């Protein structure tokens, strides 16, 4: 076992011990297809939780997005995101000559799957904030890639704002049915629909829309 693999195992073990990190595949089975998972974002732990909830063979091809300035600033942070998570780095500062989505598009062209948090930042108000348009542009450019909504539940209780030590509380990641950009659908409508798909996966939210039986 290499050092990054050991680190990955350690992190998933901790995530399991603290949160259970249970993945509920309600709308789709965990399969090795090219996918973009998009989820609500409440805590720093969100990515690790999704990662731990994925089956082991999907982890190596499913990549997070990391802010380049922050995650490459220290040796350990850089090593962690590069070697363990295989993160896609993006620039937070917008420059006119470069599309900020270009690194993402490159990763998708290589056949990798991505996990994105379309709110753009962490929110702790319960319901997610409006989605940023990146998801729409990716859906437009890569119609063959499955878009999987996911809801991460309870994680804000594990580590409230300002705390550093997590409290052990069970969390779940619920993966919904794949969705696609409809022909002629405009940006606002699509982003609203995507956000509703995420919110609909909330435990208790399924009463509004009958949940599909797990195909797994």
């Amino acid at each position, binding site marked *: 076992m290499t050092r990054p693999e050991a680190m990955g195992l350690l992190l998933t073990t901790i995530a399991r011990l603290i949160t*259970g990190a*249970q993945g*509920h595949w309600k709308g789709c089975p965990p399969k090795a297809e090219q996918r973009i998972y998009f989820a609500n974002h409440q805590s720093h732990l969100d990515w690790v939780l999704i990662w731990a909830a994925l089956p082991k063979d999907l982890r190596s091809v499913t990549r997070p997005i990391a802010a380049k300035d922050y995650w490459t600033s220290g040796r350990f942070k850089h090593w962690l995101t590069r070697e363990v998570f295989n993160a896609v780095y993006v620039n937070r500062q917008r420059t006119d000559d470069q599309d900020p989505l270009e690194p993402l598009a490159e990763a998708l062209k290589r056949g990798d799957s991505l996990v994105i948090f379309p709110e753009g930042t962490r929110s702790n108000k319960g319901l997610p904030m409006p989605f940023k348009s990146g998801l729409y542009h990716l859906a437009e450019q890569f119609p063959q890639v499955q878009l999987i909504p996911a809801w991460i*539940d*309870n994680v804000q*209780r594990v580590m*409230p*704002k300002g*705390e550093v*030590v997590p*409290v*052990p*509380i*069970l*969390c*779940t990641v619920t993966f919904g049915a794949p969705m696609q950009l409809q022909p002629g659908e405009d940006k606002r409508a699509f982003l609203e629909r995507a956000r509703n798909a995420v919110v609909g996966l909330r*435990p*208790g939210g399924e009463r509004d829309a009958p949940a599909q039986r*797990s195909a797994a």
Partner: protein
Amino acid sequence: MSFIETLRALFDPLRRLDGSQQVQLLFVVLFGVLLTISAYAAMRTVREEDAEGDALRERFHRELRAVWVTAVIFWLAWVSGTVGATLLFGIVSFLAFREYITLLKTRASDHRSLLLAFFVVLPLQFVLVGSGDFGMFSVFIPVYVFIAIPVVSALAGDPERFLERNAKIQWGIMVCIYGLSHAPALLLLNLPKASGKGAFLLFLLVMVAATAQIAQELASRRLRRRPVARQIDRSFSYAALGVGVLAAAVVGVVLAWTTLGFKVPQALAMSMIAAASGAFGEFVMRALKKDAGVRHWGNAASVTGAVGLLDRVAPICFAAPVFFHSVVWYFQLRP
């Protein structure tokens, strides 16, 4: 008295074995029974391929797996001695408490209290058990933690629902940590005439609690009596409870008399205490679940993804301290 004589003749060779041999035999029998059931179940799955009984069979297999896991855990606890047993129950306690806290909504200002409970109180309590310091271990949570938790909570500066929040945490600590820590404590008790047989005390408790649970479940299905508290549990009735406790008492008497050298009335009283407190403990846990808004367990419908461990250990959580302290009191054991 020929019946008693026959029984005696039957069990005498068993009684003459020493403690460790008896435990070994016990596990051989236990795993033998489990293997037989599993083999039978496997054969049934091959033979019948109808979809009808599928859900039932799936549930049965899940339960069977849980029994296997429990049996293996107990075997490991016994093989690894005091330290191992304490550690194993410490882990079970951690998982149960995690589930309990997940169910009850806590506020952000409870964070420090919860950290204290999970990472200080829980390990300390099990270290106290392992060290055999029964005086301290009995009072550590009711006395010291009882003041520490509200102090930490008050320091967080949030007066909202203060009593309720602290009561929740303190109650969870009592049930999941204090209660469960009495299970390994049984292993360390030095009984007169049966020193070093703590494994049997623990096994007795678990067997009695499990028997009571199963018998009660079966009886409530058969008898269909009026439930005592419909809102909490549709199947809980005094008749079913009585059947459960009686069945547990029979199992308990046979076990305690053959292995621990208890007199029959002693064994009977102790088994009934353990069975009744376990059954009532489970009932209380149901009320708690209803309060927390949980209707179903398991992956498909649960609110939290809680795996239902709390359900399984609830009888032990309540029965273990009652059982432990009544044994200590009755035999006037000096810790």
